[in-house]
């Protein structure tokens, strides 16, 4: 068991390294560099360009730059934003916190609800409840986040006036303020992945219901309720956990759009702004952080699945 965990951690670590390399190389291979991107037209003036390059250390060979960058990373130094001329860590820190608040709000409310609905729907398959909920899920799943965002703002902010719609809190506002700003963005974020989880859980429960051991439990005379509780659900839900983890991980991509749509001061909005500003070091750093978050989430999901699945815990005698 320990071996399995270590191996999984090792794989995660390798993935992190590869992500760092990929991010670095990705930016590297493109024509131009941070300076040409940043300076735009000014880059035509050689002295300004050279000056910039010297300052940013872009004249060193790539491998050396990567090692320096990686070394800095290991010490928690993400470099300096070109546009804002501040250490990136300071910029990213509070916004990362905000994004995590949003993501947690979305996940905490959404996941249990989605699993619960998925189970209920599966146990009543093909009946009215199932058809309505499944179709709603299908529709929700197919709408892009920005459409949902616009709709929600339209309904709740403009027509009903319950919320302010676009977020007005600043990025360094206290956590609680931010939390109260999350309902609409969180719902937008949650809607899509909830639909995915619901369909997946439904599918898994229906599949498991046909298993031989469910028939066997019936043959023993176990009442239906107990079969569902002790035999069906654990085996149906277990395999979905890593996939739920994965699904949550692409909350991240949704975050970029949702934060932009609601103007929420998080990492996603920062990334979009960085791109608009052509601030390559900042773009690089945010990409890296997103990658790290993704890797950690999949790691946790895998470890959770390992902990819950007896088959992975023990080996054959």
């Amino acid at each position, binding site marked *: 068991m320990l071996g399995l965990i270590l191996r999984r951690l090792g*794989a995660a670590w*390798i*993935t992190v390294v*590869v*992500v760092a390399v*990929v*991010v670095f190389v*990705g*930016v590297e291979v*493109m*024509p*131009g560099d941070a300076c040409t*991107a940043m300076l735009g037209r000014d880059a035509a003036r050689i002295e300004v360009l050279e000056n910039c390059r010297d300052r940013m250390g872009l004249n060193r060979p790539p491998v050396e730059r990567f090692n320096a960058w990686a070394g800095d990373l290991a010490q928690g130094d993400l470099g300096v934003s070109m546009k804002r001329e501040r250490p990136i860590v300071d910029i990213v820190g509070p916004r990362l916190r905000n994004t995590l608040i949003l993501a947690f709000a979305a996940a905490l409310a959404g996941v249990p609800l989605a699993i619960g609905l998925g189970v209920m729907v599966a146990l009543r398959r093909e009946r009215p409840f199932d058809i309505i909920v499944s179709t709603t899920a*299908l*529709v929700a*799943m*197919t*709408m*892009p*986040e*920005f*459409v949902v965002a*616009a*709709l929600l*703002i*339209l309904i709740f902010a*403009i027509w009903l006036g319950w919320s302010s719609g676009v977020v007005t809190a600043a990025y360094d506002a206290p956590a609680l303020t931010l939390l109260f700003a999350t309902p609409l963005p969180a719902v937008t974020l949650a809607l899509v992945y909830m639909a*995915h989880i619901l*369909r*997946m859980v439904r*599918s898994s429960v229906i599949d498991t219901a046909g298993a031989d051991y469910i028939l066997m439990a019936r043959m023993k005379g176990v009442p239906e309720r107990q079969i569902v509780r002790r035999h069906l659900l654990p085996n149906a839900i277990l395999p979905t956990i890593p*996939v739920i983890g*994965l*699904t949550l*991980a*692409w909350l*991240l*991509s949704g975050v*970029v*759009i949702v934060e*932009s*749509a609601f103007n929420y001061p998080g990492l996603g909005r920062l*990334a*979009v702004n*960085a*791109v*608009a500003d*052509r*601030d*390559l070091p900042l*773009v*690089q750093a*945010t*990409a890296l952080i*997103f*990658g790290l978050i*993704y*890797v950690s989430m*999949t790691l946790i999901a895998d470890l959770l699945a390992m902990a819950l699945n007896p088959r992975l815990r023990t080996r054959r005698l």
Partner: protein
Amino acid sequence: MSGAPILRAVLSQPSGAIGITLVVGHVMLAVLSPLVLPHDPIAQSADLMLQMPSLSHPFGTDRLGRDILSRVMLGGREAMLIATLATLVAMVWGTVVGIFLALIGGRTDTYVMRIVDALSSIPGILIVMIFVAALGVGATALIPILGCSYGLSVVYIARAAALDFVARDFVLAAQARGEARATILIREILPNVRDTLAVQGAMQWSWLMLGITSLSFLGLGVAPPTPDWGLMIADARGVMPTAPWAVLWPMAMLSTLIVGVNLATDSFAKALGVDRQMGVRAA
């Protein structure tokens, strides 16, 4: 399995019929709309700003006075074109790499999949944004970028589907005969994964549509003044309180197309006996 019976099976189900109708409707609209535009979609007019729907402008006008109906009719064209081409790119390279890895197995498979894992852990939209940040490119360059990025999830699916067959004895038998690897790939495995991949291709297309319109929404996709549903929604965000129609029509168009594709795909998957994967959306 040949085409006609499957189509019939799909159309016999209500979801399938609705889906196909929606898709066909949209495709026809995209193809034929330039011929039937009521107004010039780019023509701005200061007096006609934010008009409510009327006889001359059935969908109203936007904040620059442009006719929304015309813009909405054209709004899917660019995105659909990019989506189609990018899907082709993604499917081709994803399939080849995926099946090859399944066939070859061993260390190569492990290492390459590690890299694919790592690439997948950066949200696709970010990857695209990085490219846009560095190169400042427009819509046409999006095709290879999106194709490469979305192809990653195809690699997983193709590899998983192929792995299912690689272990089977008929592949083993082919190897025992001494058939070349490429022959095995094309002759033995491909025909068996064809259905799964077809369904996957349809899903990729819908994801790409979502991705492209999202990028347009962020200002990183289709460039104005070409009409695009995502752009239109972004544009009209500010004036939503006073002119909700400017947002609702493009929304409705996009939603009906995506819902249609998904219903049709679901139906096809059932008819073909393909287990529709809850695949990873790349962005």
